[in-house]
Protein backbone atom coordinates (compact mmCIF):
# COMPACT_ATOMS: atom_id res chain seq x y z
CA UNK A 1 0.00 0.00 0.00
CA UNK A 2 1.38 3.38 -0.98
CA UNK A 3 1.47 6.24 1.47
CA UNK A 4 -0.97 8.23 -0.67
CA UNK A 5 -3.47 5.41 -0.57
CA UNK A 6 -3.13 5.16 3.15
CA UNK A 7 -3.88 8.87 3.55
CA UNK A 8 -6.82 8.52 1.19
CA UNK A 9 -8.18 5.71 3.35
CA UNK A 10 -7.62 7.82 6.47
CA UNK A 11 -9.62 10.65 5.01
CA UNK A 12 -12.43 8.33 3.98
CA UNK A 13 -12.46 6.87 7.49
CA UNK A 14 -12.49 10.30 9.10
CA UNK A 15 -15.58 11.32 7.13
CA UNK A 16 -17.48 8.11 7.80
CA UNK A 17 -16.40 8.11 11.43
CA UNK A 18 -17.53 11.66 12.09
CA UNK A 19 -20.96 10.85 10.70
CA UNK A 20 -21.20 7.86 13.01
CA UNK A 21 -19.99 10.04 15.86
CA UNK A 22 -22.67 12.64 15.28
CA UNK A 23 -25.43 10.04 15.26
CA UNK A 24 -23.93 8.24 18.25
CA UNK A 25 -24.07 11.42 20.35
CA UNK A 26 -27.85 11.50 20.02
CA UNK A 27 -28.09 7.93 21.31
CA UNK A 28 -25.71 8.60 24.11
CA UNK A 29 -27.54 11.70 25.37
CA UNK A 30 -30.87 9.95 25.63
CA UNK A 31 -29.37 6.82 27.09
CA UNK A 32 -27.31 8.72 29.58
CA UNK A 33 -30.40 10.36 30.99
CA UNK A 34 -33.18 7.81 30.64
CA UNK A 35 -31.28 4.53 30.25
CA UNK A 36 -33.34 4.04 27.11
CA UNK A 37 -32.09 2.88 23.74
CA UNK A 38 -33.95 5.31 21.51
CA UNK A 39 -34.46 3.09 18.49
CA UNK A 40 -36.35 5.85 16.71
CA UNK A 41 -33.17 7.93 16.51
CA UNK A 42 -32.23 6.53 13.11
CA UNK A 43 -35.72 7.24 11.85
CA UNK A 44 -35.62 10.84 12.96
CA UNK A 45 -32.44 11.05 10.94
CA UNK A 46 -34.43 9.81 7.96
CA UNK A 47 -37.23 12.30 8.56
CA UNK A 48 -34.75 15.17 8.75
CA UNK A 49 -33.20 14.10 5.45
CA UNK A 50 -36.64 13.93 3.86
CA UNK A 51 -37.52 17.43 5.04
CA UNK A 52 -34.43 18.75 3.31
CA UNK A 53 -35.25 16.75 0.21
CA UNK A 54 -38.72 18.28 0.05
CA UNK A 55 -37.48 21.75 0.90
CA UNK A 56 -34.77 21.92 -1.74
CA UNK A 57 -36.02 19.57 -4.41
CA UNK A 58 -39.77 19.97 -4.37
CA UNK A 59 -40.18 23.56 -3.17
CA UNK A 60 -36.87 24.97 -4.34
CA UNK A 61 -35.94 26.67 -1.07
CA UNK A 62 -32.35 27.69 -0.46
CA UNK A 63 -30.26 25.06 1.27
CA UNK A 64 -29.73 26.85 4.55
CA UNK A 65 -33.43 27.52 5.05
CA UNK A 66 -34.40 23.93 4.26
CA UNK A 67 -31.77 22.63 6.68
CA UNK A 68 -32.95 24.89 9.50
CA UNK A 69 -36.59 23.98 8.95
CA UNK A 70 -35.66 20.29 8.85
CA UNK A 71 -33.84 20.56 12.17
CA UNK A 72 -36.75 22.38 13.76
CA UNK A 73 -39.26 19.91 12.34
CA UNK A 74 -37.29 16.90 13.51
CA UNK A 75 -36.93 18.40 17.01
CA UNK A 76 -40.68 18.84 17.25
CA UNK A 77 -41.18 15.22 16.22
CA UNK A 78 -38.58 14.07 18.71
CA UNK A 79 -40.26 15.90 21.57
CA UNK A 80 -43.64 14.56 20.50
CA UNK A 81 -42.32 10.99 20.49
CA UNK A 82 -40.97 11.45 24.00
CA UNK A 83 -44.27 12.86 25.20
CA UNK A 84 -46.46 10.16 23.66
CA UNK A 85 -44.40 7.01 23.71
CA UNK A 86 -41.71 7.33 26.38
CA UNK A 87 -42.97 9.56 29.18
CA UNK A 88 -45.90 7.32 30.20
CA UNK A 89 -43.43 4.45 30.54
CA UNK A 90 -40.81 6.21 32.61
CA UNK A 91 -41.54 4.11 35.68
CA UNK A 92 -42.27 0.93 33.75
CA UNK A 93 -39.79 -1.92 33.37
CA UNK A 94 -37.01 -1.09 30.93
CA UNK A 95 -38.19 -3.64 28.40
CA UNK A 96 -41.51 -1.84 27.99
CA UNK A 97 -39.83 1.40 27.05
CA UNK A 98 -37.55 -0.50 24.69
CA UNK A 99 -40.48 -2.19 22.94
CA UNK A 100 -42.20 1.15 22.77
CA UNK A 101 -39.12 2.60 21.09
CA UNK A 102 -39.11 -0.23 18.57
CA UNK A 103 -42.81 0.29 17.89
CA UNK A 104 -42.24 4.00 17.29
CA UNK A 105 -39.38 3.17 14.95
CA UNK A 106 -41.57 0.73 12.97
CA UNK A 107 -44.34 3.28 12.92
CA UNK A 108 -42.20 6.08 11.50
CA UNK A 109 -40.67 3.78 8.89
CA UNK A 110 -43.96 2.34 7.68
CA UNK A 111 -45.65 5.72 7.71
CA UNK A 112 -42.77 7.05 5.64
CA UNK A 113 -43.31 4.27 3.11
CA UNK A 114 -47.00 5.19 2.86
CA UNK A 115 -46.42 8.94 2.69
CA UNK A 116 -43.14 9.23 0.76
CA UNK A 117 -43.32 5.86 -1.13
CA UNK A 118 -40.48 3.35 -0.99
CA UNK A 119 -38.63 4.86 -3.94
CA UNK A 120 -35.19 6.30 -3.14
CA UNK A 121 -34.97 9.94 -4.16
CA UNK A 122 -31.99 11.99 -5.20
CA UNK A 123 -30.82 14.87 -3.03
CA UNK A 124 -29.47 18.06 -4.56
CA UNK A 125 -25.97 18.94 -3.45
CA UNK A 126 -25.18 22.63 -3.21
CA UNK A 127 -22.66 23.69 -5.85
CA UNK A 128 -19.99 24.87 -3.42
CA UNK A 129 -19.74 21.40 -1.89
CA UNK A 130 -19.03 19.54 -5.11
CA UNK A 131 -15.52 20.86 -5.77
CA UNK A 132 -12.46 19.01 -4.55
CA UNK A 133 -8.88 19.60 -3.47
CA UNK A 134 -5.92 17.66 -4.69
CA UNK A 135 -3.01 17.06 -2.30
CA UNK A 136 -0.51 15.07 -4.32
CA UNK A 137 -2.27 11.78 -5.05
CA UNK A 138 -4.85 12.29 -2.32
CA UNK A 139 -8.19 13.71 -3.40
CA UNK A 140 -10.31 15.43 -0.83
CA UNK A 141 -13.78 16.46 -1.94
CA UNK A 142 -14.91 19.60 -0.11
CA UNK A 143 -17.76 17.59 1.32
CA UNK A 144 -15.38 15.06 2.84
CA UNK A 145 -13.72 17.85 4.74
CA UNK A 146 -17.01 19.59 5.48
CA UNK A 147 -18.53 16.67 7.38
CA UNK A 148 -15.82 16.30 10.04
CA UNK A 149 -15.67 20.08 10.42
CA UNK A 150 -19.40 20.35 11.03
CA UNK A 151 -19.25 17.44 13.45
CA UNK A 152 -16.47 19.16 15.39
CA UNK A 153 -18.48 22.39 15.61
CA UNK A 154 -21.66 20.63 16.72
CA UNK A 155 -19.80 18.60 19.34
CA UNK A 156 -18.19 21.77 20.69
CA UNK A 157 -21.60 23.47 20.94
CA UNK A 158 -23.05 20.42 22.62
CA UNK A 159 -20.24 20.16 25.15
CA UNK A 160 -20.78 23.82 25.95
CA UNK A 161 -24.50 23.26 26.51
CA UNK A 162 -24.00 20.19 28.67
CA UNK A 163 -21.12 21.47 30.80
CA UNK A 164 -21.54 25.23 30.90
CA UNK A 165 -25.26 25.97 31.03
CA UNK A 166 -28.00 25.49 33.61
CA UNK A 167 -30.11 23.06 31.55
CA UNK A 168 -26.91 21.10 30.93
CA UNK A 169 -26.28 20.92 34.63
CA UNK A 170 -29.82 19.68 35.14
CA UNK A 171 -29.32 17.06 32.45
CA UNK A 172 -26.22 15.76 34.14
CA UNK A 173 -28.02 15.75 37.47
CA UNK A 174 -30.91 13.72 36.06
CA UNK A 175 -28.53 11.15 34.66
CA UNK A 176 -27.11 10.65 38.17
CA UNK A 177 -30.35 10.51 40.09
CA UNK A 178 -33.67 11.49 38.68
CA UNK A 179 -35.61 11.55 41.96
CA UNK A 180 -33.17 13.73 43.87
CA UNK A 181 -33.02 16.10 40.95
CA UNK A 182 -36.77 16.43 41.04
CA UNK A 183 -36.62 17.16 44.76
CA UNK A 184 -34.11 19.93 44.11
CA UNK A 185 -36.82 21.76 42.20
CA UNK A 186 -35.71 20.92 38.66
CA UNK A 187 -38.53 20.46 36.20
CA UNK A 188 -37.43 17.03 35.14
CA UNK A 189 -40.02 16.59 32.39
CA UNK A 190 -38.99 19.81 30.70
CA UNK A 191 -35.32 18.94 30.85
CA UNK A 192 -35.95 15.51 29.38
CA UNK A 193 -38.02 17.06 26.62
CA UNK A 194 -35.14 19.48 26.03
CA UNK A 195 -32.74 16.54 25.77
CA UNK A 196 -34.92 14.91 23.17
CA UNK A 197 -35.12 18.21 21.34
CA UNK A 198 -31.32 18.45 21.14
CA UNK A 199 -30.94 14.76 20.35
CA UNK A 200 -33.43 14.98 17.50
CA UNK A 201 -31.87 18.16 16.18
CA UNK A 202 -28.54 16.33 16.08
CA UNK A 203 -30.20 13.38 14.36
CA UNK A 204 -31.65 15.71 11.76
CA UNK A 205 -28.30 17.44 11.31
CA UNK A 206 -26.58 14.10 10.79
CA UNK A 207 -29.40 13.03 8.47
CA UNK A 208 -28.82 16.11 6.36
CA UNK A 209 -25.09 15.48 6.22
CA UNK A 210 -25.63 11.80 5.52
CA UNK A 211 -27.87 12.73 2.61
CA UNK A 212 -25.24 15.18 1.34
CA UNK A 213 -22.49 12.61 1.53
CA UNK A 214 -24.58 9.72 0.16
CA UNK A 215 -27.01 11.80 -1.86
CA UNK A 216 -30.30 10.00 -1.69
CA UNK A 217 -33.16 9.55 0.75
CA UNK A 218 -35.39 6.53 1.33
CA UNK A 219 -37.60 5.42 4.23
CA UNK A 220 -35.18 2.79 5.53
CA UNK A 221 -32.04 4.90 5.25
CA UNK A 222 -31.84 5.39 9.02
CA UNK A 223 -31.68 1.74 10.07
CA UNK A 224 -28.10 0.80 9.29
CA UNK A 225 -26.48 4.11 10.28
CA UNK A 226 -28.58 3.99 13.44
CA UNK A 227 -27.48 0.50 14.36
CA UNK A 228 -23.83 1.18 13.58
CA UNK A 229 -23.87 4.45 15.49
CA UNK A 230 -25.46 2.75 18.43
CA UNK A 231 -22.64 0.24 18.44
CA UNK A 232 -20.23 3.16 18.30
CA UNK A 233 -21.94 4.71 21.31
CA UNK A 234 -21.71 1.49 23.31
CA UNK A 235 -18.12 1.04 22.21
CA UNK A 236 -17.14 4.48 23.45
CA UNK A 237 -19.07 4.09 26.68
CA UNK A 238 -22.69 4.97 26.42
CA UNK A 239 -23.68 8.11 28.26
CA UNK A 240 -20.43 9.86 27.47
CA UNK A 241 -20.31 12.44 24.68
CA UNK A 242 -16.56 12.21 24.26
CA UNK A 243 -16.93 8.43 24.23
CA UNK A 244 -19.47 8.61 21.43
CA UNK A 245 -17.11 10.71 19.35
CA UNK A 246 -14.23 8.31 19.93
CA UNK A 247 -16.48 5.31 19.30
CA UNK A 248 -17.81 6.76 16.07
CA UNK A 249 -14.36 7.58 14.75
CA UNK A 250 -13.04 4.18 15.82
CA UNK A 251 -15.86 2.39 14.04
CA UNK A 252 -15.27 4.43 10.89
CA UNK A 253 -11.58 3.53 10.94
CA UNK A 254 -12.23 -0.16 11.62
CA UNK A 255 -14.69 -0.39 8.76
CA UNK A 256 -12.46 1.35 6.26
CA UNK A 257 -9.17 -0.21 7.35
CA UNK A 258 -10.41 -3.82 7.32
CA UNK A 259 -11.21 -3.36 3.66
CA UNK A 260 -7.99 -1.44 3.05
CA UNK A 261 -5.64 -3.95 4.63
CA UNK A 262 -7.56 -7.17 4.13
CA UNK A 263 -9.40 -6.69 0.83
CA UNK A 264 -10.06 -10.41 0.42
CA UNK A 265 -11.94 -10.39 3.72
CA UNK A 266 -14.04 -7.35 2.80
CA UNK A 267 -17.18 -9.51 3.06
CA UNK A 268 -16.53 -9.91 6.79
CA UNK A 269 -16.39 -6.18 7.45
CA UNK A 270 -19.48 -6.02 9.67
CA UNK A 271 -18.26 -9.01 11.64
CA UNK A 272 -15.04 -7.16 12.48
CA UNK A 273 -17.00 -4.22 13.85
CA UNK A 274 -19.12 -6.49 16.02
CA UNK A 275 -16.20 -8.60 17.20
CA UNK A 276 -14.42 -5.44 18.26
CA UNK A 277 -17.53 -4.36 20.14
CA UNK A 278 -17.85 -7.66 21.97
CA UNK A 279 -14.14 -7.58 22.84
CA UNK A 280 -14.39 -4.10 24.31
CA UNK A 281 -17.48 -5.05 26.28
CA UNK A 282 -15.87 -8.17 27.66
CA UNK A 283 -12.68 -6.38 28.67
CA UNK A 284 -14.35 -3.17 29.88
CA UNK A 285 -18.08 -3.83 30.22
CA UNK A 286 -19.11 -0.18 30.22
CA UNK A 287 -17.25 0.77 27.06
CA UNK A 288 -14.10 2.84 26.72
CA UNK A 289 -15.16 5.94 28.63
CA UNK A 290 -18.34 4.72 30.30
CA UNK A 291 -18.84 5.38 33.95
CA UNK A 292 -19.27 2.41 36.16
CA UNK A 293 -22.86 2.24 37.27
CA UNK A 294 -23.24 1.17 40.83
CA UNK A 295 -25.48 -1.78 41.39
CA UNK A 296 -28.26 -0.65 43.63
CA UNK A 297 -29.23 -3.06 46.33
Amino acid at each position, binding site marked *: MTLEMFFQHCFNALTLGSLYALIAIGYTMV*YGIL*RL*INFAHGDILMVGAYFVFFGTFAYGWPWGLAAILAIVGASVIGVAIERV*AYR*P*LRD*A*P*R*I*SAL*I*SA*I*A*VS*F*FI*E*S*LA*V*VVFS*GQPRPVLQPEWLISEWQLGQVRIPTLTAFVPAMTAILVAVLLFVVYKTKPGLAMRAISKDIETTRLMGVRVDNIIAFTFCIGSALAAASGIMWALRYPQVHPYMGIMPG*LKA*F*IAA*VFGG*IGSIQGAVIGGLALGFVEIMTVAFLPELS*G*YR*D*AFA*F*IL*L*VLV*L*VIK*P*TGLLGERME*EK*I
Partner: protein
Amino acid sequence: MRFNLTTLGNILLILLVGGGLWLVERHELIGDYQIYIVKLIFINAILALSLNLIYGFTGLFSLGHAGFMAIGAYVGALCTLLPEQKEMMWILDPIIWPFSVLHTPFWVAVLAGGVVAMLFAVVIAVPVLRLGDDYLGIATLGFAEIIRVFIVNMSSVTNGSLGIKGIPAEATLLTCYVWMIITLIVLARLLFGNFGNVLRCIRDNEIAANVMGINVFNYKVLSFCLGAFFAGVGGALLGSHLSTIDPKMFNFLLTFNVLMFVVAGGLGSLTGSLLGAGIITILLEWLRAIEEPMDFGLFEIPGIPGMRMVVFSLILLLIILFRREGIMGTRELTWKSLRRLGRKKA
Protein backbone atom coordinates in the same frame (compact mmCIF):
# COMPACT_ATOMS: atom_id res chain seq x y z
CA MET B 1 -44.53 -36.98 39.58
CA ARG B 2 -47.63 -36.87 41.71
CA PHE B 3 -50.33 -38.43 39.67
CA ASN B 4 -53.37 -36.29 40.25
CA LEU B 5 -56.35 -34.92 38.44
CA THR B 6 -54.48 -31.93 36.99
CA THR B 7 -51.80 -34.06 35.35
CA LEU B 8 -54.44 -36.36 33.99
CA GLY B 9 -56.32 -33.36 32.62
CA ASN B 10 -53.16 -32.02 30.98
CA ILE B 11 -52.31 -35.35 29.38
CA LEU B 12 -55.86 -35.78 28.14
CA LEU B 13 -55.91 -32.28 26.68
CA ILE B 14 -52.55 -32.77 24.92
CA LEU B 15 -53.63 -36.10 23.45
CA LEU B 16 -57.02 -34.76 22.47
CA VAL B 17 -55.58 -31.77 20.61
CA GLY B 18 -52.89 -33.97 19.05
CA GLY B 19 -55.51 -36.47 17.89
CA GLY B 20 -57.62 -33.65 16.55
CA LEU B 21 -54.70 -32.23 14.60
CA TRP B 22 -53.86 -35.66 13.24
CA LEU B 23 -57.43 -36.05 11.99
CA VAL B 24 -57.42 -32.56 10.51
CA GLU B 25 -54.22 -33.18 8.61
CA ARG B 26 -55.12 -36.69 7.55
CA HIS B 27 -58.51 -35.79 6.14
CA GLU B 28 -57.68 -32.25 5.07
CA LEU B 29 -60.51 -30.84 7.13
CA ILE B 30 -59.23 -27.27 6.87
CA GLY B 31 -57.54 -25.51 3.97
CA ASP B 32 -53.81 -25.47 3.32
CA TYR B 33 -53.72 -21.83 4.23
CA GLN B 34 -55.15 -22.43 7.69
CA ILE B 35 -52.83 -25.39 8.30
CA TYR B 36 -49.96 -23.17 7.26
CA ILE B 37 -50.92 -20.49 9.77
CA VAL B 38 -51.44 -23.01 12.57
CA LYS B 39 -48.01 -24.50 11.92
CA LEU B 40 -46.51 -21.04 12.00
CA ILE B 41 -48.20 -20.44 15.34
CA PHE B 42 -46.71 -23.63 16.79
CA ILE B 43 -43.23 -22.71 15.59
CA ASN B 44 -43.57 -19.15 16.83
CA ALA B 45 -44.73 -20.54 20.16
CA ILE B 46 -41.53 -22.62 20.46
CA LEU B 47 -39.47 -19.51 19.74
CA ALA B 48 -41.46 -17.41 22.18
CA LEU B 49 -41.17 -20.03 24.93
CA SER B 50 -37.42 -20.27 24.48
CA LEU B 51 -36.92 -16.52 24.61
CA ASN B 52 -39.23 -16.29 27.59
CA LEU B 53 -37.00 -18.75 29.43
CA ILE B 54 -33.98 -16.56 28.77
CA TYR B 55 -35.52 -13.16 29.29
CA GLY B 56 -38.81 -13.60 31.12
CA PHE B 57 -37.67 -16.13 33.70
CA THR B 58 -33.94 -15.52 34.00
CA GLY B 59 -33.85 -11.82 33.22
CA LEU B 60 -31.08 -12.11 30.63
CA PHE B 61 -31.78 -9.48 28.01
CA SER B 62 -30.75 -11.47 24.93
CA LEU B 63 -31.27 -10.11 21.45
CA GLY B 64 -29.45 -12.96 19.74
CA HIS B 65 -32.36 -15.26 19.09
CA ALA B 66 -32.27 -14.88 15.31
CA GLY B 67 -28.66 -16.08 15.33
CA PHE B 68 -29.54 -19.34 17.09
CA MET B 69 -32.52 -19.81 14.82
CA ALA B 70 -30.27 -19.33 11.80
CA ILE B 71 -27.88 -22.01 13.07
CA GLY B 72 -30.76 -24.39 13.71
CA ALA B 73 -32.28 -23.73 10.31
CA TYR B 74 -29.03 -24.21 8.41
CA VAL B 75 -28.03 -27.35 10.30
CA GLY B 76 -31.54 -28.73 9.81
CA ALA B 77 -31.48 -27.95 6.11
CA LEU B 78 -28.02 -29.43 5.56
CA CYS B 79 -29.13 -32.61 7.32
CA THR B 80 -32.36 -33.13 5.41
CA LEU B 81 -31.43 -32.09 1.88
CA LEU B 82 -30.58 -34.90 -0.52
CA PRO B 83 -26.94 -34.97 -1.69
CA GLU B 84 -28.08 -34.54 -5.32
CA GLN B 85 -30.06 -31.44 -4.40
CA LYS B 86 -27.01 -29.93 -2.73
CA GLU B 87 -24.80 -30.62 -5.69
CA MET B 88 -27.26 -28.89 -7.99
CA MET B 89 -27.92 -25.90 -5.77
CA TRP B 90 -24.44 -24.82 -4.69
CA ILE B 91 -23.68 -22.93 -7.88
CA LEU B 92 -21.14 -20.47 -6.49
CA ASP B 93 -18.76 -22.84 -4.75
CA PRO B 94 -19.29 -26.60 -4.61
CA ILE B 95 -20.35 -27.81 -1.20
CA ILE B 96 -17.55 -29.30 0.88
CA TRP B 97 -17.39 -32.71 2.50
CA PRO B 98 -18.91 -33.87 4.93
CA PHE B 99 -21.90 -31.63 4.32
CA SER B 100 -22.15 -32.83 0.73
CA VAL B 101 -23.06 -36.39 1.76
CA LEU B 102 -24.80 -35.68 5.04
CA HIS B 103 -28.34 -36.97 5.14
CA THR B 104 -30.36 -37.80 8.25
CA PRO B 105 -33.98 -38.38 9.22
CA PHE B 106 -35.94 -35.27 10.08
CA TRP B 107 -36.06 -35.68 13.84
CA VAL B 108 -32.29 -36.09 13.94
CA ALA B 109 -31.95 -32.93 11.85
CA VAL B 110 -34.14 -30.92 14.21
CA LEU B 111 -32.32 -32.27 17.23
CA ALA B 112 -28.96 -31.54 15.60
CA GLY B 113 -30.12 -27.99 14.84
CA GLY B 114 -30.90 -27.50 18.52
CA VAL B 115 -27.67 -29.09 19.73
CA VAL B 116 -25.42 -27.08 17.42
CA ALA B 117 -27.20 -23.87 18.38
CA MET B 118 -26.65 -24.82 22.00
CA LEU B 119 -22.92 -25.42 21.42
CA PHE B 120 -22.60 -21.96 19.91
CA ALA B 121 -24.53 -20.60 22.88
CA VAL B 122 -22.00 -22.07 25.30
CA VAL B 123 -19.16 -20.39 23.45
CA ILE B 124 -21.00 -17.07 23.43
CA ALA B 125 -22.30 -17.35 26.98
CA VAL B 126 -18.96 -17.58 28.72
CA PRO B 127 -17.73 -14.11 27.72
CA VAL B 128 -20.99 -12.17 27.43
CA LEU B 129 -23.12 -13.39 30.30
CA ARG B 130 -20.95 -11.40 32.69
CA LEU B 131 -22.42 -8.27 31.13
CA GLY B 132 -25.59 -6.78 32.46
CA ASP B 133 -28.78 -5.53 30.91
CA ASP B 134 -28.55 -3.48 27.76
CA TYR B 135 -24.89 -4.33 27.29
CA LEU B 136 -25.80 -7.99 27.21
CA GLY B 137 -28.53 -7.15 24.69
CA ILE B 138 -26.11 -5.38 22.40
CA ALA B 139 -23.42 -8.05 22.73
CA THR B 140 -25.87 -10.85 21.88
CA LEU B 141 -27.25 -8.79 19.01
CA GLY B 142 -23.66 -8.41 17.84
CA PHE B 143 -23.15 -12.18 17.98
CA ALA B 144 -26.31 -12.81 15.98
CA GLU B 145 -25.01 -10.44 13.32
CA ILE B 146 -21.59 -12.12 13.35
CA ILE B 147 -23.27 -15.48 12.79
CA ARG B 148 -25.16 -13.99 9.87
CA VAL B 149 -22.04 -12.46 8.34
CA PHE B 150 -20.32 -15.84 8.52
CA ILE B 151 -23.28 -17.61 6.93
CA VAL B 152 -23.20 -15.08 4.08
CA ASN B 153 -19.48 -15.53 3.50
CA MET B 154 -19.03 -19.27 3.97
CA SER B 155 -20.68 -20.12 0.69
CA SER B 156 -19.10 -23.56 0.37
CA VAL B 157 -21.15 -24.67 3.37
CA THR B 158 -24.20 -22.43 3.38
CA ASN B 159 -24.52 -21.43 -0.29
CA GLY B 160 -23.98 -17.84 0.85
CA SER B 161 -26.61 -15.25 0.14
CA LEU B 162 -28.25 -17.45 -2.47
CA GLY B 163 -29.82 -19.33 0.38
CA ILE B 164 -31.14 -22.86 0.34
CA LYS B 165 -34.40 -23.90 -1.21
CA GLY B 166 -36.36 -27.08 -1.63
CA ILE B 167 -35.87 -28.16 1.98
CA PRO B 168 -38.06 -31.27 2.38
CA ALA B 169 -41.35 -30.20 3.95
CA GLU B 170 -41.26 -32.69 6.77
CA ALA B 171 -42.44 -30.27 9.43
CA THR B 172 -46.03 -31.43 9.36
CA LEU B 173 -48.76 -30.05 11.56
CA LEU B 174 -48.37 -32.89 14.01
CA THR B 175 -44.55 -32.67 14.08
CA CYS B 176 -44.68 -28.97 14.89
CA TYR B 177 -47.27 -29.63 17.56
CA VAL B 178 -45.23 -32.42 19.14
CA TRP B 179 -42.13 -30.24 19.27
CA MET B 180 -44.10 -27.43 20.82
CA ILE B 181 -45.50 -29.77 23.47
CA ILE B 182 -42.00 -31.12 24.18
CA THR B 183 -40.74 -27.57 24.62
CA LEU B 184 -43.66 -26.70 26.85
CA ILE B 185 -43.34 -29.79 29.04
CA VAL B 186 -39.56 -29.50 29.43
CA LEU B 187 -39.81 -25.84 30.36
CA ALA B 188 -42.81 -26.32 32.65
CA ARG B 189 -41.15 -29.22 34.50
CA LEU B 190 -38.00 -27.17 34.94
CA LEU B 191 -39.54 -23.82 35.76
CA PHE B 192 -42.13 -24.96 38.23
CA GLY B 193 -39.56 -26.82 40.23
CA ASN B 194 -36.60 -25.63 42.21
CA PHE B 195 -34.68 -24.73 39.06
CA GLY B 196 -37.37 -22.22 38.18
CA ASN B 197 -37.25 -20.67 41.63
CA VAL B 198 -33.51 -20.23 41.32
CA LEU B 199 -33.89 -18.55 37.92
CA ARG B 200 -36.61 -16.23 39.16
CA CYS B 201 -34.47 -15.37 42.13
CA ILE B 202 -31.60 -14.44 39.81
CA ARG B 203 -33.96 -12.34 37.73
CA ASP B 204 -35.44 -10.47 40.66
CA ASN B 205 -32.35 -10.02 42.75
CA GLU B 206 -29.03 -11.30 41.60
CA ILE B 207 -27.18 -10.22 44.70
CA ALA B 208 -29.58 -12.05 46.96
CA ALA B 209 -29.15 -15.15 44.81
CA ASN B 210 -25.40 -14.86 45.21
CA VAL B 211 -25.71 -14.48 48.95
CA MET B 212 -27.84 -17.62 49.13
CA GLY B 213 -24.91 -19.53 47.69
CA ILE B 214 -26.36 -20.00 44.23
CA ASN B 215 -23.79 -20.21 41.47
CA VAL B 216 -25.48 -17.48 39.48
CA PHE B 217 -23.22 -17.69 36.46
CA ASN B 218 -23.74 -21.43 35.96
CA TYR B 219 -27.48 -21.08 36.13
CA LYS B 220 -27.42 -18.22 33.68
CA VAL B 221 -25.34 -20.24 31.22
CA LEU B 222 -27.69 -23.20 31.63
CA SER B 223 -30.79 -21.14 30.99
CA PHE B 224 -29.19 -19.34 28.04
CA CYS B 225 -28.09 -22.59 26.42
CA LEU B 226 -31.42 -24.30 26.94
CA GLY B 227 -33.16 -21.31 25.35
CA ALA B 228 -30.71 -21.44 22.45
CA PHE B 229 -31.40 -25.16 22.02
CA PHE B 230 -35.10 -24.58 21.54
CA ALA B 231 -34.44 -21.56 19.34
CA GLY B 232 -32.36 -23.88 17.15
CA VAL B 233 -35.18 -26.42 17.11
CA GLY B 234 -37.63 -23.68 16.15
CA GLY B 235 -35.28 -22.49 13.41
CA ALA B 236 -34.94 -25.99 11.95
CA LEU B 237 -38.73 -26.40 11.93
CA LEU B 238 -39.18 -22.95 10.38
CA GLY B 239 -36.73 -23.83 7.60
CA SER B 240 -38.59 -27.01 6.79
CA HIS B 241 -41.92 -25.23 7.07
CA LEU B 242 -40.94 -22.45 4.63
CA SER B 243 -38.81 -24.87 2.59
CA THR B 244 -36.39 -22.06 1.81
CA ILE B 245 -34.00 -20.08 3.95
CA ASP B 246 -31.42 -17.38 3.35
CA PRO B 247 -29.20 -15.31 5.64
CA LYS B 248 -31.24 -12.15 5.18
CA MET B 249 -34.33 -13.52 6.91
CA PHE B 250 -32.42 -14.01 10.16
CA ASN B 251 -31.79 -10.32 10.74
CA PHE B 252 -32.51 -8.58 13.98
CA LEU B 253 -36.12 -7.83 13.06
CA LEU B 254 -36.80 -11.53 13.48
CA THR B 255 -35.57 -11.38 17.07
CA PHE B 256 -37.83 -8.41 17.67
CA ASN B 257 -40.77 -10.36 16.28
CA VAL B 258 -40.16 -13.12 18.80
CA LEU B 259 -39.66 -10.56 21.56
CA MET B 260 -43.04 -9.13 20.63
CA PHE B 261 -44.75 -12.51 21.08
CA VAL B 262 -43.19 -12.81 24.52
CA VAL B 263 -44.02 -9.30 25.66
CA ALA B 264 -47.56 -9.42 24.32
CA GLY B 265 -48.14 -12.71 26.09
CA GLY B 266 -46.51 -11.68 29.32
CA LEU B 267 -42.90 -11.97 30.45
CA GLY B 268 -42.53 -14.91 32.76
CA SER B 269 -45.67 -16.73 31.68
CA LEU B 270 -45.40 -19.89 29.56
CA THR B 271 -49.06 -20.00 28.62
CA GLY B 272 -48.79 -16.29 27.91
CA SER B 273 -46.12 -17.01 25.30
CA LEU B 274 -48.42 -19.52 23.62
CA LEU B 275 -51.22 -16.97 23.55
CA GLY B 276 -48.93 -14.16 22.41
CA ALA B 277 -47.53 -16.22 19.53
CA GLY B 278 -51.01 -17.27 18.48
CA ILE B 279 -52.65 -13.88 18.68
CA ILE B 280 -49.90 -11.87 17.00
CA THR B 281 -49.42 -14.39 14.20
CA ILE B 282 -53.14 -14.30 13.47
CA LEU B 283 -53.30 -10.53 13.87
CA LEU B 284 -50.54 -10.06 11.30
CA GLU B 285 -52.45 -12.23 8.85
CA TRP B 286 -55.77 -10.64 9.58
CA LEU B 287 -54.40 -7.12 9.13
CA ARG B 288 -53.78 -7.85 5.46
CA ALA B 289 -57.45 -7.03 4.93
CA ILE B 290 -56.87 -3.33 5.55
CA GLU B 291 -54.60 -2.97 2.55
CA GLU B 292 -57.23 -4.13 0.14
CA PRO B 293 -59.56 -1.70 -1.53
CA MET B 294 -62.67 -1.47 0.59
CA ASP B 295 -65.98 -1.30 -1.15
CA PHE B 296 -68.75 0.28 0.87
CA GLY B 297 -71.31 0.11 -1.91
CA LEU B 298 -71.70 3.85 -2.32
CA PHE B 299 -68.04 4.74 -2.24
CA GLU B 300 -64.75 2.92 -2.41
CA ILE B 301 -61.46 3.36 -0.57
CA PRO B 302 -58.50 2.35 -2.71
CA GLY B 303 -56.05 -0.02 -1.04
CA ILE B 304 -53.08 1.73 0.51
CA PRO B 305 -50.02 -0.48 0.41
CA GLY B 306 -48.06 -0.31 3.63
CA MET B 307 -51.00 0.58 5.88
CA ARG B 308 -50.78 -2.81 7.52
CA MET B 309 -47.44 -2.14 9.14
CA VAL B 310 -48.60 1.32 10.21
CA VAL B 311 -51.61 -0.15 11.98
CA PHE B 312 -49.58 -3.02 13.36
CA SER B 313 -46.98 -0.76 14.92
CA LEU B 314 -49.74 1.42 16.34
CA ILE B 315 -51.39 -1.60 17.96
CA LEU B 316 -48.04 -2.66 19.36
CA LEU B 317 -47.56 0.82 20.77
CA LEU B 318 -51.02 0.83 22.34
CA ILE B 319 -50.44 -2.57 23.97
CA ILE B 320 -47.20 -1.36 25.48
CA LEU B 321 -48.68 1.94 26.66
CA PHE B 322 -51.89 0.63 28.13
CA ARG B 323 -51.28 -2.99 29.02
CA ARG B 324 -47.59 -3.32 29.38
CA GLU B 325 -47.61 -6.53 31.40
CA GLY B 326 -49.04 -8.32 28.35
CA ILE B 327 -52.03 -10.62 28.28
CA MET B 328 -51.07 -12.87 31.16
CA GLY B 329 -48.53 -10.87 33.15
CA THR B 330 -46.59 -13.48 35.10
CA ARG B 331 -49.67 -15.58 35.73
CA GLU B 332 -50.32 -18.91 34.08
CA LEU B 333 -53.41 -20.31 32.53
CA THR B 334 -54.04 -23.51 34.52
CA TRP B 335 -57.00 -25.69 35.34
CA LYS B 336 -57.13 -23.99 38.70
CA SER B 337 -57.28 -20.48 37.29
CA LEU B 338 -59.89 -21.58 34.77
CA ARG B 339 -62.00 -23.05 37.54
CA ARG B 340 -61.64 -19.87 39.54
CA LEU B 341 -62.62 -17.82 36.50
CA GLY B 342 -65.67 -20.04 35.98
CA ARG B 343 -66.69 -19.64 39.60
CA LYS B 344 -66.32 -15.87 39.45
CA LYS B 345 -68.55 -15.70 36.42
CA ALA B 346 -71.23 -17.94 37.93
